[in-house]
């Protein structure tokens, strides 16, 4: 009977072997494959492909190839008898999972290839030693059994050492070698990329918004400023054990003999709750995954009583664990034993709203006892003689269903914990007796555990300085542009991580972040070339990443001081030194609040920069009154704060043109037209400046008074001042004869607003420079306006040319003024600029008031009397 069965079984296998060998040895498969590979290289790609795809002649065969190759790949994936597990091909090759699939398939095949090659090498070596071929039958038998053993580890995601059971010595040796080899290779992976995200699988909703975590389950304090932990009602003394000596610790049953329940359903959870209500103490541990979740994800909860072990699937029962277990953990009469509970406490609060009372932390106890090491593994070895497998501590606990090895490890974490707790209590008591002078060690342990419990979870928040805490940034020695890229990419990856619920390290590791900032790739091709390992989110958002890099490189000026601080100052002082960039960024982040997207933020940055450039051009174009640098800056700053998105030149130009056409209508309107009014006043006021001598004289005098306040005067400066005064006299005399009437009319509309005065004076000065020898009229005034704005828009060189042409006789003095005052301006700070601006504003107001009075008092003969005074 058995022989007959063996014959029947062997024949199809041998037939299949022969068929497969024919297929392999025959050159048709290999040659077809190589020809397919070579011909496919001739297919056009990228832009050519997309262009040709519009034509049916090209499109139909391509579609057919797509369908055929897709179905063939799916067939390869569906061949479970080959892989021994499910390797289904994902639908779209553009997906990252498809590439992972290809890598996994090739890994599988290459691993088996290596195994086969190793077997071949071994057989070859034996053949050389013996001098003849080994009998095929024996080899087949051995190989078959060995390969059967090999299959099992492949089927499991996590492998452990398997027991070796064999008949013959040769087979034993082979299998032993195989097992050693496989166990050596198959380490527990920290991250298994192919696991489906539990957030999607179990519909886990997380609030990753950039806002502080709200402890909704806690009572508020009387002033409603903070959350109160339930432990605040209790003292540490309430939890200290009593009558410790009376009890004798009982070692728990072996792991295999203890009842075990894997809790995955609500009714099982209810049974667990009922069980926990009936006991006074239980041990708890959590398994956590930080790498594939923004805030972290609790994957498993282990609970053990004196008699039973439980493992709760925190993915399936996530929304039920809080309601059912919250009261039990909060109950001060029930003792919870944990090891190294400082992070477990936080995870319970974050994921389930559970706040623990009456905790005994065996980790803290081991510190009080001054044990050799403080790890749970050491305690298990020291008190129970159990050797735990360390590899699983950092395993990827998102795996479902859990392998047997991981389940065993999880149970070991809590199974012996109550027994260890009993032994530790005895040791602490013994320690207290030996040293009666110190405080009670048991009380000390409970104090520490109390402190561990009362800490509250705080969500990680993104701030303007978050990029400064990137590990490795201090040593990188980055310049401002690179630092800007670091900040931009930190913000980008934080956004992606919160939206997709991934850790920032998974989206964009710090090492890669610093490498990108160092290389500064500004195109998709460059970025892809420098990224060597797989980063799925970067691949999907490569265009966004490149745009972030480009925008950061364009606006790196804000990071100059930060870069200097990083280079010169130690990390402790970086925060203090960066006060200025913080203040600058606050404005930008204010823009962020209004418009979260990066593009709008960058546009605001550009508009702000344009305004600053406009102000600088105005200063250079003026060429007079070096003291006005401060006032110009102040006016620019004021304008930026009011309307950051508007352009200076465009606004004034439009206002001027509108004023001419509709004077009466514009005057009637309210808020929006105030600036138009100020510009109207600007034009008239600048006109009146040139009419009387008294006005020009009074204008010059406040400047003279103001300058000593800012910096000491020197001989060349005073010489240039006198020359300026003389020149102004001549201009005003000519102008007064021509346009006396219009001057009077404009005088009546003078406005007293500070900003208007500032702008008026600046533009008036420009007109003097531009039109020294020409008669003035309203139409010509508007023309000069346009000229000024055009000159503002010109480049710096053009400005210099205009400057030289206008004030040619005084080149050297003007150059000296600019050089000195420019240096002084750089050294100043914002506050001084503001103060100077205010002073100048008040001075100008006084001067205008004086001008008005004098003019009214002496209309006709005033010219003579003014000249006499001068």
């Amino acid at each position, binding site marked *: 009977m058995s022989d007959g069965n063996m014959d029947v079984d062997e024949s199809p296998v041998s037939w299949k072997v022969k068929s497969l060998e024919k297929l392999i040895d025959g050159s048709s498969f290999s040659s077809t494959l190589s020809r397919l590979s*070579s011909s496919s290289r001739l297919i056009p790609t990228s832009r050519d492909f997309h262009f040709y795809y519009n034509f049916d002649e*090209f499109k139909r065969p391509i579609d057919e190839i797509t369908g055929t190759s897709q179905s063939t790949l799916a067939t390869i994936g569906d061949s479970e008898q080959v892989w021994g597990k499910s390797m289904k091909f994902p639908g779209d*090759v553009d997906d990252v999972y498809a590439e992972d699939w290809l890598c996994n398939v090739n890994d599988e095949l290459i691993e088996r290839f290596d195994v086969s090659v190793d077997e071949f090498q071994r057989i070859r070596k034996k053949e050389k030693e013996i001098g003849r071929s080994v009998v095929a039958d024996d080899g087949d038998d051995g190989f078959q059994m060995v390969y059967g053993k090999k299959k099992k580890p492949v089927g499991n995601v996590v492998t452990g050492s398997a027991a070796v059971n064999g008949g013959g010595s040769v087979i034993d040796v082979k299998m032993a070698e195989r097992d050693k080899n496989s166990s050596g290779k198959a380490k527990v992976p920290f991250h298994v990329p192919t696991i489906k995200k539990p957030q999607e699988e179990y519909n886990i909703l997380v609030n990753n918004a950039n806002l502080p975590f709200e402890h909704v389950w806690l009572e508020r304090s009387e002033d409603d400023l903070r959350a109160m932990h339930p432990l605040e009602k209790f003292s540490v003394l309430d939890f200290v054990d009593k009558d410790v000596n009376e009890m004798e610790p009982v070692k728990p049953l072996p792991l295999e003999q203890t009842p075990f329940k894997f809790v995955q359903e609500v009714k099982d959870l209810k049974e667990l709750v009922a069980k926990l209500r009936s006991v006074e103490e239980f041990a708890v541990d959590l398994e956590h995954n930080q790498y594939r979740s923004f805030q972290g994800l609790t994957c498993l909860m282990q609970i053990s009583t004196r008699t039973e072990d439980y493992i709760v699937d925190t993915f399936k029962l996530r929304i039920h664990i809080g309601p059912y277990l919250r009261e039990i953990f909060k109950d001060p009469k029930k003792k919870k034993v944990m090891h190294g509970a400082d992070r477990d406490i936080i995870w319970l609060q974050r994921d389930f709203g559970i706040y623990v009372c009456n905790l005994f932390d065996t980790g803290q106890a081991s510190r009080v006892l001054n044990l050799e090491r403080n790890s749970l593994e050491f305690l298990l070895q020291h008190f129970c003689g159990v050797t735990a497998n360390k590899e699983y501590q950092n395993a990827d606990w998102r795996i479902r269903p859990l392998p047997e090895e991981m389940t065993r490890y999880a149970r070991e974490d809590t199974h012996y914990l109550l027994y260890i707790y009993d032994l530790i209590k005895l040791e602490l008591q013994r320690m207290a007796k030996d040293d009666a002078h110190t405080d009670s060690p048991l009380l000390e342990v409970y104090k520490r555990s109390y402190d561990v419990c009362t800490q509250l979870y705080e969500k990680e928040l993104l701030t303007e300085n978050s990029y400064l805490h990137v590990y490795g940034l201090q040593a990188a020695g980055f310049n401002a542009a690179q630092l800007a890229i670091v900040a931009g990419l930190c913000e980008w990856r934080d956004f992606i991580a919160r939206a997709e619920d991934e850790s920032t390290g998974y989206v964009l590791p710090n090492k890669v972040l610093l490498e990108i900032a160092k290389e500064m790739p500004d195109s998709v091709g460059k970025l892809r070339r420098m990224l060597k390992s797989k980063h799925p989110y970067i691949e999907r958002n490569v265009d966004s990443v490149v745009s972030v890099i480009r925008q950061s490189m364009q606006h790196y000026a804000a990071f100059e001081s930060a870069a200097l601080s990083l280079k010169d100052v130690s990390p402790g002082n970086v925060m203090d030194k960066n006060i200025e960039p913080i203040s600058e960024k606050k404005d930008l982040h204010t823009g962020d609040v209004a418009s979260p997207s990066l593009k709008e933020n960058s546009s605001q940055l550009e508009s702000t920069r344009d305004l600053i450039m406009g102000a600088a051009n105005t200063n250079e174009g003026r060429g007079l009154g070096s003291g006005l640098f401060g006032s110009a800056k102040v006016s620019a700053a004021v304008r930026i704060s009011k309307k950051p998105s508007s352009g200076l030149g465009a606004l004034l130009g439009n206002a001027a043109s509108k004023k001419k056409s509709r004077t009466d209508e514009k005057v009637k309107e309210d808020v929006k037209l105030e600036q138009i009014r100020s510009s109207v006043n600007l034009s008239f006021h600048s006109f009146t400046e040139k009419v009387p001598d008294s006005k020009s004289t009074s204008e010059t005098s406040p400047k003279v008074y103001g300058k000593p306040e800012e910096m000491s005067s020197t001989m060349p400066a005073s010489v240039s001042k006198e020359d300026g005064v003389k020149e102004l006299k001549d201009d005003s005399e000519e102008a007064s004869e021509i346009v006396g009437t219009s001057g009077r009319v404009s005088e009546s509309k003078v406005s007293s607003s500070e900003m208007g005065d500032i702008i008026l004076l600046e533009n008036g000065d420009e007109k003097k420079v531009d039109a020294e020898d020409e008669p003035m009229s309203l139409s010509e005034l508007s023309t000069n306006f346009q000229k000024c704005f055009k000159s503002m828009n010109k480049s710096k060189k053009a400005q210099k040319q205009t400057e030289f042409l206008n004030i040619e006789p005084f080149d050297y003095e003007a150059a000296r003024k600019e050089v000195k005052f420019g240096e002084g301006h750089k050294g100043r700070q914002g506050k001084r600029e503001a103060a100077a601006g205010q002073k100048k504003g008040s001075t100008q107001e006084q001067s205008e008031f004086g001008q008005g009075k004098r003019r009214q008092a002496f209309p006709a003969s005033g010219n003579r009397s003014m000249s006499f005074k001068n």
Partner: protein
Amino acid sequence: MEGGGGSSGGGAGGVVPESAIEAVNQTLAYLKELKPQLEQMLTLAEPEVLAAMQPLQRAKTMHLLAEATTTLYELRLRCTGVDPDDHRVKSEIERINVYREKFQKCVDQSKGPLRPTTVLNRQAATRFIEHSLPDLTSTQKQSIRDLSKGEKSRIRYSETSARKRKYQSNEKQSVQSAAKDFLEKAAREIIGHNENGLKGPLVAAADGSDDVEVGTA
């Protein structure tokens, strides 16, 4: 109607180059030829069957499956317009090539002898025989020498011809592979040149769009 259709068809034929259409059609034919063989291989590749095979045969099976999978994936990428050289699949292709070389080494090793064989030096043996037989006449001695020489010359002739054949066959293979490589390179250059030619205005357009964006900003 027919005239209009004809003209549009002619236009389409002119737009898509002949080399591209030929490449696509050839690829489709090879793919149709490959698919049934691959499916048969997958059907036969059961754990029991693989375990019963010789290790070298099994290694070849694994390698061919990996190469087929990678080639099909690459082909699928090309049909979506993605250039595999710019894609991360390139590392997989390089890995397959490394293992192909490894497999070739194993095959060469398997064909080699277990140990070097012993070869008899006939002329030396003849000299030993001559000196050990003092009663031989000069005629007999010469005949023995001629016999040994004649046999050796025949052996030499056969060995020489065998070597020549091997050499020629190797040379032929190398010539074929060299020609194949040359043609592939030429084809790549031609296609690359076309791509460059077409990429030129497209790249310029992209630059133009960049300028437009800069202006907008």
